[in-house]
C-alpha cells in the first residue's frame, strides 16, 4: 500500500501526474486530502534534499524566531518538521498576538538583543528597522549561490510585492530601485478590494459597485434595505493602519500621492490637492452615511468580524479578511463574494495598496547563514504551495502558486470571484506610499484628521490644509522637507 502511494506521489513530483489526478488516485486508495497534502509535501522535501545544495551545512544549529499569531505562522509551524528533517536544524519560536507584537519587535531590536535570529515584519516597519541598522540587506544571501538553493527561484515572487520590500534608504527613494536593499522577504500579502454579501446587495436591488460613487450609493441602499446592518466596513481607528488599506488604495487609484519628492530629495505634503479633497469628501460622506456607527474605533478586526457576523454588507479592505470571514465558524460562511475594485471611474484597473507579512533577519543574530537557511525554506516555492493548498497561507506571493491549478480550483470553489479579483488587481498591487522615516507619524496624523472630518469637527478642505501644514512642519523638523 505504501509503495503504491509513494509511486503515485513520485509520479506527481516528476510531472507525469497532475495534482488533481494525484488527489483523486490517493482518494481512491482511502487517503484523505489532508494526508495526501502531507505526503506531497514530504515528497517535495525529499526532492529539495536532492537538488545538490548542502542543506545539512548547519545541522545541529538552533535558530530562534519572533512570530506574530497568524494563519501564516500556523502554516509554517505545521510544516516545520520537514525543514528540521531537511536541514538537521532545530527551530524555536515565540508567538505573540498582534496587539503587542510590534512593540516586542521594537523592544528586542532597539536593545540590540541577539535572542532572535529572524522575525515577521511588515514592509513599512523596515523603513524604520533598515536605516536604524537592525535588519540585514538580504541581497547578500539571495545572490550568493553557495548559500541559496538552486530551486529558490527569487524571480518567482510577484514583482510589485518583491519591490515593495526593497528600499535604498533615501527618504523618497523609489521602492525596488536598482540600488535598493532587500530588507525583508515577502511571505504572504493582502490586496485591498471589495468583499460583499451578495444576498444583502440583492435585497437592496443593487449590483456590485464598480467605482467609489457606486460604492457610496450601494452601501446606502444595502443599509436601508437590510435591518440592523451598516453599508460598508472600512477601518477608522486613530492609527496608520486606517490609511493603508482601502483608503489609500482608492486614493492611489485617483493618481494621488501622499508626498511630493523634489529634485533635491526634499519631501512635502501632497494630500491637499483638489482631487484629493474631492476624494476625501466622498470617503467621509460614505462613512457618515453608511459606515459603522463606532467607525472611529474600528481596526481590521472589527471590519472583518462585522462582515463575518452579517453586520455589514461590504468591506473595502484586505481581501484575506474577506477570505477568512467566508470560512467555517462565521455566520456568513460561504455567503461572501469578491470583486476587484477601481474607485476611479477613469482608471483602467485597481491599484491596491498592499500589506506584506514578510520575514527579516536581525542584524544582531549570531548565526546569520543558518537563519538564512530557514528564511529561504519558509519563503520557498515548496512551502508556499503547501501552505496555499493545505493551510490558509493566502495570499501567496509566488507566481507559481497562483498558476497552480489545484490552488486556483480550491479558491474558485469556495471563494467566488477571488481568483479573478487577484488576477485583475495584481499588476497594480504595490505599496503606494512614499518610503520615508516618518511614515508612522504622518499616517497616524492623517487618520486623526480623517476622524475629525467624519465627526464634522473640521471641513474636509480646511482639515487637509491643516494636515498638509503639520506634515510639512514635521518633515522640516526632521530635516526631510
Amino acid at each position, binding site marked *: 500500500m505504501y509503495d503504491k502511494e509513494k509511486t503515485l506521489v513520485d509520479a506527481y513530483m516528476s510531472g507525469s501526474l497532475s495534482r488533481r489526478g494525484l488527489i483523486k488516485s490517493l482518494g481512491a486508495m482511502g487517503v484523505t486530502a489532508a494526508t495526501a497534502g502531507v505526503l506531497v509535501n514530504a515528497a517535495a522535501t525529499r526532492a529539495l534534499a536532492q537538488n545538490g545544495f548542502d542543506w545539512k551545512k548547519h545541522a545541529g544549529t538552533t535558530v530562534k524566531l519572533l512570530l506574530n499569531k497568524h494563519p501564516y505562522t500556523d502554516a509554517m509551524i505545521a510544516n516545520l518538521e520537514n525543514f528540521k528533517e531537511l536541514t538537521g536544524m532545530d527551530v524555536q519560536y515565540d508567538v505573540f498576538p498582534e496587539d503587542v507584537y510590534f512593540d516586542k519587535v521594537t523592544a528586542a531590536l532597539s536593545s540590540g538583543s541577539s535572542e532572535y535570529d529572524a522575525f515577521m515584519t511588515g514592509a513599512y516597519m523596515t523603513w524604520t528597522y533598515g*536605516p*536604524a541598522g537592525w535588519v540585514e540587506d538580504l541581497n547578500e544571501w539571495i545572490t550568493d549561490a553557495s548559500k541559496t538553493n538552486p530551486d529558490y527561484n527569487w524571480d518567482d515572487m510577484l514583482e510589485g510585492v518583491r519591490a515593495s520590500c526593497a528600499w535604498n534608504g533615501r527618504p523618497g527613494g523609489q521602492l525596488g530601485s536598482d540600488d535598493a536593499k532587500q530588507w525583508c522577504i515577502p511571505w504572504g500579502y493582502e490586496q485591498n478590494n471589495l468583499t460583499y454579501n451578495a444576498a444583502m446587495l440583492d435585497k437592496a436591488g443593487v449590483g456590485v459597485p464598480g467605482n467609489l460613487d457606486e460604492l457610496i450609493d450601494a452601501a446606502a441602499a444595502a443599509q436601508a434595505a437590510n435591518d440592523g446592518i451598516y453599508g460598508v466596513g472600512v477601518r477608522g481607528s*486613530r492609527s496608520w493602519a486606517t490609511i493603508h488599506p482601502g483608503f489609500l488604495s482608492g486614493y492611489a487609484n485617483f493618481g494621488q500621492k501622499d508626498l511630493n519628492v523634489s529634485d533635491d530629495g526634499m519631501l512635502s505634503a501632497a494630500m491637499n490637492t483638489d482631487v484629493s479633497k474631492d476624494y476625501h469628501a466622498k470617503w467621509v460622506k460614505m462613512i457618515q452615511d453608511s459606515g459603522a456607527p463606532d467607525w472611529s474605533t474600528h481596526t481590521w478586526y472589527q471590519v472583518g468580524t462585522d462582515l463575518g457576523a452579517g453586520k455589514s454588507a461590504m468591506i473595502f479592505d484586505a481581501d484575506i479578511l474577506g477570505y477568512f470571514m467566508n470560512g467555517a465558524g462565521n455566520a456568513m460562511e460561504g455567503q461572501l463574494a469578491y470583486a476587484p475594485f477601481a474607485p476611479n471611474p477613469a482608471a483602467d484597473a485597481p491599484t491596491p495598496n498592499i500589506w506584506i507579512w514578510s520575514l527579516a533577519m536581525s542584524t544582531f543574530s549570531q548565526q546569520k547563514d543558518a537563519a538564512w537557511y530557514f528564511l529561504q525554506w519558509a519563503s520557498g516555492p515548496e512551502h508556499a504551495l503547501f501552505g496555499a493548498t493545505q493551510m490558509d497561507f493566502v495570499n501567496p506571493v509566488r507566481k507559481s502558486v497562483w498558476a497552480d491549478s489545484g490552488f486556483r480550483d480550491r479558491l474558485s470553489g469556495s471563494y467566488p470571484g477571488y481568483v479573478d479579483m487577484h488576477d485583475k488587481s495584481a499588476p497594480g498591487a504595490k505599496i503606494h506610499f512614499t518610503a520615508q522615516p516618518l511614515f508612522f507619524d504622518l499616517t497616524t496624523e492623517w487618520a486623526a*484628521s480623517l476622524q475629525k472630518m467624519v465627526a464634522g469637527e473640521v471641513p474636509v478642505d480646511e482639515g487637509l490644509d491643516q494636515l498638509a501644514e503639520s506634515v510639512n512642519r514635521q518633515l522640516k523638523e526632521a530635516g526631510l522637507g
Partner: protein
Amino acid sequence: MTQTAPAALPRRRFRVGRRALPYLLSLPALLTCIGILIPFFTAVVYSLQRYRLSQPWARKFNWGENYLNFMSDPAFWNTFKVSMSYAILTVGIELLLGLGIALLLQKRTRFNNFVSIMLLMPLMTAPALASLMWKLMTNPGFGILSYFAELLGFEDFRWASDPSTALLTVVIVDVWVYTPFIMILLLAGLRSLPTQPFEAASLDGVPRLFVFWRITLPMLTPFLLTATLFRVIESIQQFDIIYAMTQGGPGDKLTVFQVEAYLNFFQFTNVGRSAALLMILWAITYFLSNVFIKNWLRLREKQRGEA
C-alpha cells in the same frame, strides 16, 4: 603524645565608623534608587537630543529644542489640556462618589462590611481589561449600555466613538475602576476618627449637615489629601484605559501625555520627543506632589498644635 587545643583567639568585631554608618544604612535605598535614577537621567539625556531610531545619522544634542518646539506646537498644548481635564474630572468625581459611599458605609455593620468588600471588585480588575469590557458594553450595535441609552431616549449614542462624548466615556470607566480606592481610604479614615466630637455634637443637637461641614470634613482632610494625591498622580499618567478604548482618538480628543509618549516611542520611534514629553509629565507630577505634601504636612502641624 597529647595534643593541646589551640588557644582561642579573641574574636575581632567588624566595627563601622560613626561617619560611615548612615551611608551603610541607606545603602539598600540607594541601590533601589539607582534602578530609578539611571533610567531617569538617561531619559533626561534623550530629551535633550534629536533622536529618532529611524534616522540614526541625525542623532545629536539639540539641548532644549524639543522643549522649545512644544511651546509652538498645538498638539502639545492639546495634550496638556486633555491630560489636565481628564485628571480633574476623574479625581473630582471619584472624590465625591468615594466620600458619599464611605459616609453611607461608615457604620460598622455586617452588611456594610460586606458591601464595602464587594465594591472593591472593580479595583481588582486590570484597567485594560475593564476598558475592553466597557468597550463591549458601549458598542453602538450590541452593547448593553447602548441599549439602555436608547431606552432613555439617547438615540444613536456613540460613546467613545464620538468626539463630544469620548472624554465622558473614558472618565466613566476610570470612575468605575478607581472610585473604590478612594472609598476604602476614606472609609478607613472615617472609622478612625475620634468619637468624642461627634458625641458632643449629638448631645448638643447640632444638625447633621453642620457636623459634616464643621467636624467630619476638617478631620477627614488629611485622608482626602492623601487620596487626592495618589489619584491625581495616577490619573495624570493614565494610559491603559484611554489607549484600549480609543487609541487617543477620535481626532486628538484623548491624546494624553502617556498615549502621546507611547506612540512617539513605539510607533514613531521618536525617542527624543517621547522622552521630553515624559520629562514634562514628571515635572507636573513633581510639582503637584509637592503642593499636596506641603499642604498635608501643614495640616498635620496645625492639628498637632491644636491638640
